[in-house]
């Protein structure tokens, strides 16, 4: 048996991704017929499969632009950036950035942030489990010593800040009920968390996303308030804490003695 050279997988992949290229010439059909239609099965599997994965990952973006537009846009993304791992739930990590540079989508300036929110929702779905702090322990927190306290946040916790009302857009598309038209000229900061199995998407008061980011990177509540007021003068700690406590963001709070 002779040892043949490795077949050229790189050429196979180039032909898969570029429909202008002919199928690799090492392929043959039983009758000696042209292999184009048969090779197109692989092209189609790769492209349609990944476009479907994006459609499943970004259902609200799809609703916002319509099926035809979304699939054309997603196809461009697929050609530009294939998955880096076989775990398709990680696919689409650069989709929001891609959408922000996708000229035909410029008319919907909020689309990239909606994509960012949807990616965060998907990441929360697969995030590690952790038990949120029970309500009675939360009630027992010494509020006077909170300033120097630090917190462990639920592993699924994510924030997405936007110049557009992304939480309202998300909620509107998640429910079938008719709502009054959105005022697009106000921003919202979205909190995404999955304390048990259900994913919660809720709006934080202005500055809330900086507050959460500061806590997550190990800062004290005092430092987190500073981070929030640096961007939002009217930051209200009580409003923000209420939202965070209600949604089960805290897994542990350590109060220094």
């Amino acid at each position, binding site marked *: 048996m002779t040892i043949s050279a490795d077949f050229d*997988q790189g050429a196979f992949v180039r032909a898969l991704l570029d429909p202008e290229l002919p199928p690799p010439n090492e392929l043959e059909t039983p009758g000696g*017929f042209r292999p184009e239609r048969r090779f197109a099965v692989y092209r189609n599997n790769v492209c349609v499969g990944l476009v479907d994965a994006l459609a499943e990952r970004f259902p609200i973006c799809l609703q916002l632009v319509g099926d035809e537009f979304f699939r054309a846009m997603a196809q461009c993304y697929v050609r530009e950036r294939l998955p880096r*791992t076989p775990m398709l739930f990680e696919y689409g990590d650069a989709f929001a950035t891609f959408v922000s540079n996708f000229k035909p989508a410029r008319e919907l300036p909020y689309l990239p942030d909606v994509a960012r929110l949807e990616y965060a929702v998907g990441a929360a779905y697969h995030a590690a489990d952790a038990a949120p702090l029970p309500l009675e322990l939360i009630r027992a927190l010494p509020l006077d010593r909170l300033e120097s306290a630090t917190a462990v946040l639920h592993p699924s916790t994510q924030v997405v800040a936007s110049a557009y009302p992304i939480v309202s857009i998300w909620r509107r598309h998640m429910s079938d009920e008719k709502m009054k038209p959105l005022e697009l000229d106000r921003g919202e900061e979205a909190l995404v968390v*999955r304390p048990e199995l259900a994913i919660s998407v809720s709006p934080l008061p202005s500055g809330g996303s900086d507050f959460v980011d500061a806590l997550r990177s190990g800062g004290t509540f005092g430092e987190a308030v500073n981070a929030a007021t640096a961007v939002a003068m009217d930051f209200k700690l009580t409003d923000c804490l209420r939202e965070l406590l209600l949604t089960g963001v805290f897994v542990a709070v350590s109060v220094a003695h």
Partner: protein
Amino acid sequence: MGARSAPEHCRERAASSLPARAGVGFKSVHFPDIEASARDVGFFEIHAENYMGAGGTPHAQLMPLRRDSPLSIHGVGLSIGGAEPLDRAHLGRLKTLVERYDPAAFSEHLAWSTQGTRFLNDLLPLPYNATTLAHVVAHVDEIQEALGRPILLENPAAYLRFQSSEYSEIEFLREVVRRTDCRLLLDVTNAYVSAANLGFSADEYIDAFPMSYVEEIHLAGYADDVDEVGAPLLIDAHCAPVPDAVWRLYDRALARRGPVATLIEWDNNIPSWPTLLAQATQAEAFLGRRRRAVEDSLRSEALHDDLG
């Protein structure tokens, strides 16, 4: 499960402890129906890559499923048929999953899906020759070493063939089994689809398949198309009920193999739970007839021995 130093150690152990019954691919949307029903399926199969996240609903559903039913884990991302080294990080994730759920069987494909750092999300074909055989054997060895168990390798659906192939698919699979002591997953639909697309006899393929190494069978529906010259082009789409021609081929395989774990694969246009269950029931009927045929033949042999 301890690490094994040499593939020889695997020989004492069957690759699969799946029951010789019909199972179905588990879909998250069916979970409430499965919880509510009598779970009258022989086993569930999952795609490994969908359960490589840290937590959440996927694991919350899989834990009770695994507790109450035999589980088969089916990988779609190891790229066994590629020339490149296996993705060690991915193999590590797979090992974690297999250790966590200790499934009755783990299976993968005779195909490739990764090139460089790019995952193509499809089961792509390879030529069958000495070079690719060496890669496949090395990869199967490495996986079996990492998982500490023999794996089942699945025959692919083919649309084209390679000029550089020197073995038939069956010769190639036989060689992989001989050199790695892995076992086989016979996808009857893939055999049917490949035979139609490449113009060989599906019956002859089944008759020549190394059936004594088959520890699981897959059945699925395919999509029907034609190529440029009107020749049949069947596509392994997992999108429909198992067609009659595939049931007939399945029965032919069972006649040689005897009853064996059989999966209904239906991954696209996912049907209602009762529709999926009806497919499994149909497979159970084939398995039951074959089981009775085996019993009858044993009885008549016993009778013959008694009289003799």
